[in-house]
């Protein structure tokens, strides 16, 4: 009896092990340095929620990417660099890592050397260190869709279009209110450059992290009487800015939010003070896009949705997470087409990102038409020429108020190259060529 029960246990265990290995033969892993608590939890839960929802959709609907299942695990960073590094060290030993997505400029900076040694891509969608756009110097870092300089150029072009042309910017007064972090400071030089180029007056005012006290800054703004205020905020800083603007009598429709000040979580807490506020975005909000609909049906219908509050489905951060999921998954798919349908190495996925070209037709096929425009990454352009649009808050939802606008990439590229070449010199990095980019480490 005991013998048979042992035998049966052993048989079950063997079957289980064999079955498990058979199911998980090919697996691509995403380590997630997420943040679900702390001052930036709204951004973290929305973004990582959307990202995980899309990975789940691919697993449930397609059984993975060409048979390779997608896997992930999370580590809490609270948006702090030390914790981000700790999570990186904890998760980096997992097999089959596709890419890192920390969603924090500070953490991304601390990881650049490390992931370059590991040869694994680091994705900083819509943010990051601007000069990492130059793939010649930063082979493994991808500020996808929109780097901070492009965003700045997009915002200035939009203000110009409201004023009736770039020549009308002369003599206008613009204030940039920025978050006191590496992310917030990233655009200081480019605003100064554009102010000299177009002749508008500029003052840039810092709000110390996390930004829940801004009386002094807005009193300064009131004294300046600017035509526009650009809000380069993050997390709790944004609703506080809108409310303080209302208190000091600055009209919300002359405040232009940047790409991290553009979510529902930024405007809803501000209540009426946010009505008329306009913000830049790379991805539209709302649930009407086929891919979001499929996530609602397949993932949330299956009880596997990641957002606790279903009303946040289709919000700006959730949709950004979904777009980020699309870009990561498509990079894996493109790399698979070259290297085979198996678990890829980080360097192979890097090759995939460097060939990540999704034209509007392909975006439509992915169910994301109008959700985002297109992307065209190459070995030396790691941003991929993302388009931007502007949306205005009407008190209940965001309404798109502009076409897809292209930032002035030609103007920005020489500045980016100057900065990245200085970095290469400082760190003794050899500038990469197209042949170097095609050499891929496959084990």
């Amino acid at each position, binding site marked *: 009896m005991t013998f048979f029960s042992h035998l049966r246990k052993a048989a079950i265990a063997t079957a289980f092990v064999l079955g498990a290995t058979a199911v998980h033969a090919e697996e691509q892993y995403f380590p997630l340095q997420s943040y679900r*608590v702390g001052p930036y939890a709204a951004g973290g839960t929305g973004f990582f929620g959307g990202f995980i929802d899309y990975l789940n959709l691919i697993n449930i609907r397609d059984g993975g990417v060409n048979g390779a299942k997608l896997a992930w695990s*999370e*580590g*809490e960073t*609270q948006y702090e*660099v*030390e*914790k981000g*590094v*700790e*999570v990186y*060290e*904890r998760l*980096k*030993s997992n097999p089959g890592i596709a890419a890192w997505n920390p969603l924090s*400029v*500070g953490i991304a*900076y*601390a990881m*650049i*050397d*490390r992931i370059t040694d590991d040869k694994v891509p680091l994705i900083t969608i819509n943010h990051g*260190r*601007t000069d990492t756009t130059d793939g010649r110097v930063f082979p493994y870092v991808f500020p996808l869709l929109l780097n901070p300089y492009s965003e700045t150029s997009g915002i200035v072009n939009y203000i110009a279009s409201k004023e009736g042309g770039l020549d009308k910017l002369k003599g206008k007064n613009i204030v940039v209110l920025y978050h*006191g*972090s*590496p*992310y917030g*400071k*990233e*655009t*200081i*030089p*480019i605003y100064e450059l554009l102010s000299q180029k177009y002749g508008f007056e500029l003052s840039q005012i810092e709000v110390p*992290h996390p930004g829940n006290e801004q009386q002094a800054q807005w009193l300064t703004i009131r004294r300046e009487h600017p035509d526009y205020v650009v809000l380069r905020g993050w997390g709790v800083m944004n609703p506080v800015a809108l409310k303080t603007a209302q208190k000091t009598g600055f009209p919300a429709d002359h405040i232009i939010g940047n790409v991290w000040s553009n979510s529902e979580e930024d405007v809803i807490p501000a209540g009426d003070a946010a009505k008329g506020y306009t913000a830049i975005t790379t991805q539209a909000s709302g649930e009407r896009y086929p891919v979001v609909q499929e996530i609602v049906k397949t993932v949330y219908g299956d009880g596997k949705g990641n957002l606790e509050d279903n009303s946040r489905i289709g919000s700006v951060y959730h949709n950004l997470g979904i777009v980020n999921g699309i870009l990561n998954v498509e990079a894996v798919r493109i790399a698979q087409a070259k290297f085979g349908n198996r678990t890829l190495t980080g360097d192979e996925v890097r090759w995939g990102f460097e060939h990540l070209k999704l034209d509007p037709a392909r975006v439509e096929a992915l169910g994301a038409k109008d959700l985002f425009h297109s992307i065209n990454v190459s070995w030396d352009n790691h941003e991929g020429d993302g388009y931007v649009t502007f949306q205005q808050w009407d008190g209940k939802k965001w309404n798109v108020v502009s076409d897809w606008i292209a930032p002035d990439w030609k103007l920005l590229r020489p500045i980016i190259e100057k*900065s990245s070449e200085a970095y290469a010199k*400082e*760190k*003794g990095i050899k500038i990469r060529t197209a042949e170097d980019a095609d050499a891929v480490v496959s084990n």
Partner: protein
Amino acid sequence: MAVQALDAARLPVDWAKLVQKLALATALFVVAYGVVPAYASGYLVEAILLPFLALSLAAVGLNLLTGYCGQLSLGSSAFMAVGAFGAYNFNLRVEGLPLAVTMILAGISAAGFGVVFGLPSLRLRGFYLAVSTLAAQFFVQWALTKFGWFSNDNPSGVISAPHLAVAGLSLDSATGRYLLSVTTVMVLTALVWRLVNSATGRNFIAVRDNETAARVIGVPVLRTKLLAFAISSFIIGIAGVLWAFTYLRTVEPAGFNLDRSFQILFIIIIGGLASIRGAFWVRRSSLSSRSFCPGSAHSCSAACSIRAFST
């Protein structure tokens, strides 16, 4: 005079204790240079040991000032920042400067800075001194943010660590950075150990226990206080270099905020003022519980066990 009397009254050598100490030191060496580099996982080195070593060293430095000399300081992370940014700039602007010299120069800049912000201690005591050292904290962060020169005009004000090499040997790997850290910490801790047992160390204690009495028996109070500020800041400055170069490999001014100063102060308060060993014990537990607990039940339990062990 009083100091010489103390020296003469030294107890006869206790051989059993000396042997015990020697054995402990040997065991420490074997673990630090043999066991850890050979067996420790990357996670243990990169996420636990490197911050542990850097902050412990900072705590040893602050302990010299606060624990031994009795001068309360809330500017520790400012001195770390001066060290880190100093080392970065010396390394960047002076071609071919050896790493050790860079670190010593960074320490000296921090020491000079410490002396300047130590001057109020000649007139202020206790809470008032703590508040005046707060000025160092805010001044340094402001200056590093305001003047782009310090971060080589990097737009976001973040510096990244250069290649680390000693005598042509690269120390960029995790083990290399660990060895650099552990050697620096051991050397400086040994020096501090020597110092607190010397006449100067006794002067520190005399000033802490009763300034007036110390002055009466001939301790140069002014010089002693400034010396304490200088040496303490020197050590904290080098701890800042380790934090930036060996642990994070990148540093922004906001990384050296008031929180970090408090963290270091609490390490020495919990570990015991005027206890060098305490700096190391508490850092271990505060590291895993305060900094790294969320999202990691694993390090939580480790923290609990270490805490139980140390108490």
